[in-house]
């Protein structure tokens, strides 16, 4: 074999293990559940192989599923907006701070490294009947009976915001940090107020980071089932909880396949739209 041919083959040898892993453990399984969603789980628990539309009919027409899909999207949207409102000023503060930016950013990213389940659970310590807030309010004398603050949609959103905020801050920071501050100075010297130069120069230039952070918050938020299980009440199930129910509790795997594909299509469409207009590069900047 010639040297050139060997040289050309080398990268493929290096790539082969990773590509086969992703193909065998992700792509083929995804194609498999598309097929699987047309099978039927019979009363005996065996799968009826074939082309049945029953699972899809149930998933697409049952009001129960539709309502939960919409409330999942609503919860994810609120979470994303709250993350943006909390995260943007914080990221701006870090990016424009004269102190040690890296340290400030690392400090805010620190909770990101702390176990998701611990962080979710910790809100019970704060908002629970004998949690920090109730204890504080009762000792000050504002209330005499502990308030029931836990296990509702608000606490689910609270938990999600705490989980996802670092993603937003990081992405906005990366974007803000890349803006040449001379642009703002130029706007100011041409007579713009600080507020005007922020609105007309800095904010538009940081929108890609905001969009990347928003996409991550929305997609990760809409795909969660642990937060509603820990911080939500019985009526706060999100769409991923339905998938978990179907697969783990009811063992109705064909229906579970259809439901997971529904979630994949809805969230995948968002990723596609994002990719179409902004490209994946911005997202990778924030992750790398």
């Amino acid at each position: 074999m010639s040297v050139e041919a060997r040289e050309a083959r080398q990268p493929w040898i290096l790539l082969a293990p990773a590509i086969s892993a992703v193909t065998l453990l992700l792509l083929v399984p995804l194609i498999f559940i598309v097929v699987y969603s047309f099978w039927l789980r019979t009363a005996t628990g065996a799968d009826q192989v074939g082309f049945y539309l029953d699972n899809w009919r149930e998933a697409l027409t049952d009001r129960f599923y539709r309502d939960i899909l919409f409330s999942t999207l609503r919860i994810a949207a609120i979470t994303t907006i709250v993350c943006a409102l909390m995260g943007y000023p914080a990221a701006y503060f870090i990016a424009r701070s004269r102190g040690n930016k890296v340290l400030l950013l690392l400090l805010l990213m620190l909770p990101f490294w702390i176990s998701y389940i611990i962080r979710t659970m910790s809100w019970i310590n704060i908002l629970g009947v004998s949690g920090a807030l109730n204890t504080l309010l009762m000792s000050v004398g504002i209330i005499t009976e502990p308030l029931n603050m836990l296990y509702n949609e608000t606490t689910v959103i609270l938990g999600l915001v705490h989980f996802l905020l670092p993603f937003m801050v990081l992405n906005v920071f990366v974007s803000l940090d890349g803006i040449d501050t001379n642009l703002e100075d130029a706007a100011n010297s041409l007579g713009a107020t600080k507020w005007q130069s922020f609105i007309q120069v800095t904010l538009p230039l940081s929108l890609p980071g905001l969009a990347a952070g928003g996409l991550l918050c929305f997609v990760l938020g809409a795909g969660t089932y642990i937060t509603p299980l820990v911080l939500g009440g019985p009526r706060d199930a999100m769409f991923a909880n339905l998938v978990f129910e179907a697969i783990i509790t009811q063992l109705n795997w064909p229906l579970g396949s259809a439901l997971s594909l529904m979630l994949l299509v809805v969230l995948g469409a968002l990723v596609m739209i994002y990719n179409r207009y902004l490209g994946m590069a911005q997202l990778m900047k924030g992750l790398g």
Partner: protein
Amino acid sequence: MRWGWHLIRLWSLLVYGFMFLPVAVVVLLSFNASQFGSFPMTGFSFRWFVELWNNDAIMRAFRTSIVLGLMTALISTTLGVLASLALVRYKVPGANMISTLLIAPILVPEVVLAVALLLFLNFLGLHKSFALLLFGHVIFTLPFVILVVQARLVSIRRDVEEAAMSLGASPVQTFFQITLPLMMPAVLAGALFAFTISFDDITGTLFWKPGGVETVPTQIFAMLRNSISPEINALGTVMIVMTVGLPLIGAAIARQLARKSGT
């Protein structure tokens, strides 16, 4: 406009508080002497850490999580480093598509990935098992390793390798004596990332784990079904120390290595 900046600073301070408050409360309560995992604090005590140490279920979960995390890190880093080398060092036709393919596991919602992998491997005859759990963790951590390693690899200069080759080193010798030592910080960072993500994962793990096997997060989740015992807070404190301490130590080691190798 000074007050505007003050407002932003105050807001940011509140955001920092919001991020740290729950963590602080967990650590605080884990030293609570009271027998309930809640306020008011009745005194300072290490008893919950002792109970944790004596709790067989939790210790077993710890061992499972560590073994799983180490194996995941080993496999994921190996695959990820090889792939990153190919993508950074060679002109690969369709490199963009390959990159997208390799990071696809984080673009797909984890629940969907979990379901697809579980059902497909089950169809092939591999039922819920440690192996399934390992496959799941590998595929889920691989994109993170690739992103981290690739970002660091770009900064390693190629001419050092070319110098070694021109002085008569074979490609294999060059790799082990020049490239690998230079890459070590990137490799360690990737491995640490994979370990931490695997150690922390619950979304996929609940789908893949066989009955009776618990990792630390699923064990905590199972214990939450009752009420929050101070043991969980103690476990939380241990996890916080581990997940925050390990990357910090790792970063320090990486920096040392980087300084030695002069990159």
